[in-house]
């Protein structure tokens, strides 16, 4: 177990293992999300209240879900950075934070698009949308702090502290925003998955969510490989990889 943990900390070892997993992640992710999306968009029944416009949940829900979990993952990686000083954990944070921003933006955008037919306005200060907006701020803080320090270790540890503080705050933020929302708009329609959602709706949704997670894994590994190459560019193994038959491997690594 400890040996495995130790190995995981080695960027070189991780580079290799990531390369082996990536095709599977990509394949399975594409398969699941395509199935889910086709099913959801073409075959799932209409919503009795919202008609077809509800179908945007097949994009909105997975991105929103993932955006939140990615922040949690960053915080977990932050703990690993602080406690075990593992380089790969920081590589993960660096590579994944911009992905989190994109996911949050997508969730906000799809939420706004969904809002137009539902509320008649692109932006409504709904509890979920507001929480996503705050999540976007948290992400931007992490990225801003990460780029502010030129020294990689300092950046990594500072970002780790910030991410952990952010994660402690997320439940409080969520609770307070929900409370604020009921205070101001007691009777608006909320974007929620109704518990009574029929299986024809939630099964494809589940497929898309699973698929997006796998695709995220692929993107994360891809970006991590690139980051590892950048950081380890002066080491022997990277030089050898570049010079010898590693060229093709390098391309999949996305240099």
């Amino acid at each position: 177990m400890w040996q495995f943990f130790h190995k995981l900390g080695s960027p070189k070892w991780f580079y290799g293992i990531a390369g082996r997993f990536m095709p599977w992640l990509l394949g399975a992710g594409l398969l699941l999300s395509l199935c889910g999306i086709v099913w959801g968009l073409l075959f799932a029944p209409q919503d009795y209240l919202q008609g077809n416009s509800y179908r945007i949940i097949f994009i909105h829900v997975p991105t929103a879900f993932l955006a939140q979990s990615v922040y949690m993952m960053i915080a977990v990686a932050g703990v690993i950075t602080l406690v075990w000083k593992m380089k790969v954990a920081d590589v993960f944070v660096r590579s994944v934070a911009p992905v989190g921003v994109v996911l949050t933006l997508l969730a906000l955008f799809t939420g706004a698009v969904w809002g137009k037919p539902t509320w008649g306005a692109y932006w409504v200060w709904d509890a979920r949308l507001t929480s996503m907006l705050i999540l976007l701020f948290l992400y931007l803080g992490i990225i801003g702090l990460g780029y502010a320090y030129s020294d990689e270790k300092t950046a990594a540890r500072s970002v780790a502290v910030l991410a952990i503080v952010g994660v402690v705050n997320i439940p409080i933020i969520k609770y307070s925003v929900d409370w604020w929302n009921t205070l101001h708009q007691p009777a608006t329609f909320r974007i929620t998955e109704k518990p009574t959602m029929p299986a024809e709706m939630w099964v494809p949704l589940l497929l898309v969510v699973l698929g997006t997670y796998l695709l995220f894994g692929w993107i994360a590994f891809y970006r991590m490989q690139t980051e590892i190459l950048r950081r380890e560019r002066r080491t022997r193994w990277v030089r050898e990889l570049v010079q010898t038959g590693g060229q093709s491997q390098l391309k999949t690594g996305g240099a």
Partner: protein
Amino acid sequence: MTEPLQQADHLLKAQRLECERDGRTLFRDLSFSIVPGTLTRVEGPNGSGKTTLLRILAGLNDNWSGHIHWCGRPRHKQWDSVRRNTLYLGHRPGIKGVLTPMENLQALVAGRQAVSRDVLSRALVQVGLGPWQNVPCEHLSAGQKRRVALARLLFADEPLWLLDEAFTALDVEAVAAVERLLADRVRDGGAVVMTTHHQPALDDMQRILLGHGPGQPAAEVSDEPVAEVSHG
């Protein structure tokens, strides 16, 4: 908690220290011991990591790998004792311009040692700041401010002193006085580790050499220990 030291016990022992900064290795495989009753000068060209090494020894910088022992036990298991028994004076010694020398000393010392106002006052007189005791430090010269910081050495009870460029801005007489103070301290069994720009007129110095000349990063020297500690 801490036991009395045995003769010839090391106070602090560093093994295979390695430090990397901004992707450049400052030193590697650096091992040495600091023994009571010795004065050690860290030497090396600019940018060779002298200040960094001192900050590592003080416990301020933790971007390093290797082992540091304090009185025979790993240092990280006894931080309270290590902090209490190490006095670090950096080249920015924590002197506030709007406070008087007396207030500055009181604030700096409060958490470490119970020292009466009389003792502080005497120390300030001794470093030649008697008439300035109650003048805000912003009205003092750079050398005088440095003296405020160094006045701490007159009553400090820490066995290990880490002095980073302690002589900066001092005039010749003051430099000589500090050197005498350090020599006395070492004779009394204290340990001093310092960096200086000038060659101090002290005999019996240990040396820790960092870097191997300008333009040649220490990282390139692989197997041989970069540092050597010679005695005398």
